[in-house]
C-alpha cells in the first residue's frame, strides 16, 4: 500500500542512491588521473610568513588550474598535481623534519626552503632520499659541486646587485652607497656580496656595518646616522617585505632624498599601504607581472590566485616558476618522475616555452657562470621601480 510514509521513504532512498551513484562517478573520473605529489617545505607562519606563503599559494593556484583543466600529461599518463606542504617556521630543525616527511611520502621534487640555514640543513636528507629541491636561498655551496640536488629558484643578489648598481651609476649618477641589513644570515650575506660588488664598480661605500633586529618596528633610530652620511643610494640588503615600507618611510621622513633599492622581491600593495608616496622610485627585483612583459597566461594566473586567496602577492611573480619548471622537465623526460638522476640529466639540455612572458622567452636551467653547473631556474631578472601603487619595469636582465 502506498502511503505518505512509504513515499517519503522511497524518495529518500532514491536521493541517497542518486548521490551514491554520482559520488562513484566522480571518484571514478578522478581515479582516471594518477597523482603527482610535489612538496613544499618553507616558512608559512611567524614574521617571515610572507616568503613561504607566496610560494605555496603560487603552487596551489597553478596546481588547481592544471587539475581543473584535466591534469598534466607526462609520458603515457595524466596526472593531477597534489601539493604536499610543510611549515618549517624558518627553523632548520623543522626544515629537516619537513624534508624527511617528503621522503616518507615518496615526494621527489620539493620547493623551498626559503632561507639559507634551512636550505643548507636539508641538503643531506634530500641527497640521501633522492629529492631535488628548489631553495630561495643564495649560498653558492648549495649549487656548486659536489652538491647537485639543489636548484636556485630565483635570481641571487650577487647576480642582480651588480646589474642594478651599474645601471644606477651610469644612469642616475650614483657615487656614494650605503647598506643596511637585518642581523640574520641571509640579509648579512647579501649585504657582504653587495658591498663587494659596489666596491668593484668603484662606488664609495659610506656605510656597511649598520644592522637591525628583524623584528624592529621603528627604524628611525637605525637610519638616523646613515641618512646623515648623505649616500646617493641606500641599499636595503635582503629586506623582508614587511620591513621595506617602514625603512623607506623612516628614511624619507628623516629627509633622505637619494635612491633606495633592494635585491629581493617586494609587493606593491604592501609598499603603498606602508610608505605611500614615499615609496615612489623604490627599486626592487621582480618577476613577470608588469604589464610590459606579462603574457595572458600570467594575467590568468594572477586572476586565479586573487580569486583563490583574496589578494595577489607580487612576490609570486618569481615564485610562479618553480612548479612550472618541475612539470615541464618531467614532461620532457617522463623517466624522471621517480628518478632524480634522469631529472638532472635533462636539466642540461632542457628548454621549453615560457608561458608567463610575452614573446618567445624560454624556460631553461642556468647558473653555469655562478655555480659551474646548471643549478638555477632561468627567471627573468626584472628590475622594477615602484610608482603610485604599481611596479614599472626599469630594465630586464638575464643570468647565464
Amino acid at each position: 500500500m502506498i502511503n505518505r510514509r512509504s513515499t517519503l521513504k522511497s524518495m529518500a532512498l532514491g536521493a541517497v542512491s542518486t548521490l551514491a551513484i554520482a559520488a562513484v562517478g566522480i571518484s571514478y573520473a578522478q581515479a582516471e588521473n594518477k597523482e603527482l605529489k610535489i612538496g613544499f617545505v618553507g616558512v608559512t607562519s611567524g614574521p617571515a610568513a610572507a616568503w613561504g606563503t607566496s610560494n605555496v599559494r603560487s603552487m596551489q593556484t597553478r596546481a588547481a588550474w592544471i587539475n581543473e583543466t584535466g591534469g598534466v600529461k607526462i609520458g603515457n599518463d595524466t596526472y593531477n598535481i597534489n601539493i604536499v606542504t610543510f611549515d618549517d617556521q624558518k627553523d632548520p630543525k623543522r626544515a629537516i623534519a619537513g624534508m624527511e616527511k617528503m621522503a616518507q611520502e615518496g615526494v621527489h621534487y620539493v620547493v623551498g626552503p626559503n632561507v639559507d640555514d634551512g636550505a643548507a640543513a636539508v641538503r643531506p636528507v634530500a641527497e640521501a632520499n633522492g629529492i631535488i629541491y628548489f631553495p630561495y636561498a643564495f649560498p653558492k655551496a648549495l649549487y656548486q659541486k659536489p652538491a647537485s640536488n639543489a636548484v636556485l629558484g630565483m635570481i641571487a643578489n650577487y647576480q642582480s646587485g651588480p646589474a642594478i648598481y651599474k645601471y644606477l651609476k651610469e644612469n642616475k649618477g650614483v657615487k656614494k652607497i650605503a647598506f643596511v641589513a637585518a642581523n640574520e644570515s641571509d640579509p648579512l650575506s647579501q649585504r657582504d656580496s653587495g658591498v663587494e660588488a659596489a666596491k668593484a664598480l668603484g662606488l664609495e661605500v659610506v656605510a656597511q656595518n649598520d644592522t637591525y633586529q628583524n623584528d624592529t618596528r621603528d627604524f628611525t633610530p637605525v637610519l638616523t646616522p646613515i641618512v646623515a652620511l648623505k649616500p646617493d643610494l641606500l641599499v636595503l640588503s635582503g629586506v623582508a617585505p614587511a620591513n621595506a615600507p617602514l625603512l623607506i618611510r623612516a628614511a624619507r621622513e628623516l629627509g633622505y632624498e637619494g635612491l633606495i633599492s633592494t635585491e629581493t622581491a617586494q609587493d606593491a600593495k604592501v609598499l603603498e599601504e606602508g610608505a605611500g608616496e614615499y615609496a615612489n622610485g623604490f627599486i626592487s627585483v621582480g618577476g613577470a607581472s608588469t604589464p610590459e612583459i606579462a603574457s595572458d597566461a600570467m594575467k590568468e594566473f594572477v586572476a586565479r590566485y586573487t580569486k583563490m586567496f583574496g589578494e595577489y602577492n607580487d612576490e609570486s611573480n618569481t615564485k610562479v616558476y618553480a612548479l612550472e619548471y618541475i612539470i615541464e622537465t618531467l614532461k620532457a623526460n617522463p623517466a624522471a618522475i621517480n628518478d632524480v638522476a634522469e631529472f638532472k640529466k635533462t636539466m642540461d639540455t632542457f628548454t621549453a616555452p615560457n608561458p608567463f612572458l610575452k614573446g618567445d622567452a624560454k624556460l631553461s636551467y642556468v647558473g653555469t657562470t655562478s655555480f659551474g653547473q646548471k643549478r638555477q631556474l632561468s627567471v627573468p631578472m626584472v628590475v622594477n621601480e615602484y610608482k603610485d601603487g604599481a611596479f614599472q619595469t626599469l630594465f630586464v636582465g638575464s643570468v647565464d
Partner: protein
Amino acid sequence: MEQVIANGLYLGAQYALIALGLTLIFALMNVLNFAHGQMYVLGGFITYTVYGQLGLPFVVALLASGITLAVIGALMEKFLFRTVIRRSHREESTMLLAAATAFFFDAVILLLFGEKQRGVPKIVKGVFNDVGIIMPYDRIVVGALAIVFIAAFVLYMQYSRVGRAMRALAQDRVAAQLMGVRVDRYSMIGFAMGAMLAGIVGGLLVTITGVNSGIGGPISIKAFLMVMIGGAGVVGGAIAGGFILGMMESVGLTVLREYGDVTYLVIFAALMVFLSVRPNGLMGKPWG
C-alpha cells in the same frame, strides 16, 4: 644628539604603553600573559580594517580596537584563566595557557588577516624639522597620545573605586577578598583593561609602523624586557622600563653602529648584570 634623545623619548612612550597592560595583568593575577603581543597585533588589525579599509574615522577605529580587546580579555579571564587558576595547583599552568592562547591568536590572525604587512594612511601629514630634531607630526601626536593614555591610566588606578580595588588585589589577594573586594569581578576587569591597553596601543601604532601577523611574539618579548627592568607588577616600573629601553635602543643604535648589531647584545648583557644586582627590577614589589 637632540635627534637621538627625541627618538629615545618617542620610543619610550610607545614602549611604556605596550608594557602597561602586561604588568597590570601580572600584578592582579600573577599571570605572565604571553599573548600580550598577539593582542597588540589584533588591535592593530582592527584599526587597519575599520580606519584603513572601511574608511571610518581613526577615533572610531581606536575605540573598536580597545573595546574588542577588552571583551576578548574579559572572556579569556572568565572562561580560561579563572578556571585554570581555580583548578590547578601549579603556577606554570597559567603560563602554559597563556602560551597556548598566544599560538592560537597567531594562527587565527594569520587566517583572518593574511601574511602581508599592513598599513594605514597617516593621521597627520608633515614633518617637524627644527632645533636639530626631525620628527614627523604623526609621531608627535602618537607619542603625546601615549603619554595621555598612560597618565589617564595612572590617575584611574589611583583615584577610582575600581582602581583602588585592583590595587588592593595586587597587594594582597586574600586580604582584599576578606575586606569585601569581589576578586573574580575585579580580576576580570583588570584582565580586560590590560587587553584593552594592548589593543589601543596596537591601533595607535598601526599608523606609524603598520602591523603584520608575525610580530606578536617579538612584541611580547620586548614588553617582558621592560617589565623586568622596571619590576614585574609595578605600573611605575613598566613606564620607567619602557623609557629606559627606548633610550638605550636609540643611543645604542647611534653610538654602537660601527660595530654591527651589538645594541641588543649590550642591552641584554646590561640587563643580566642589573638583574643579578636587583632581581626584582627597579621598583621591585607590587604597587600599593
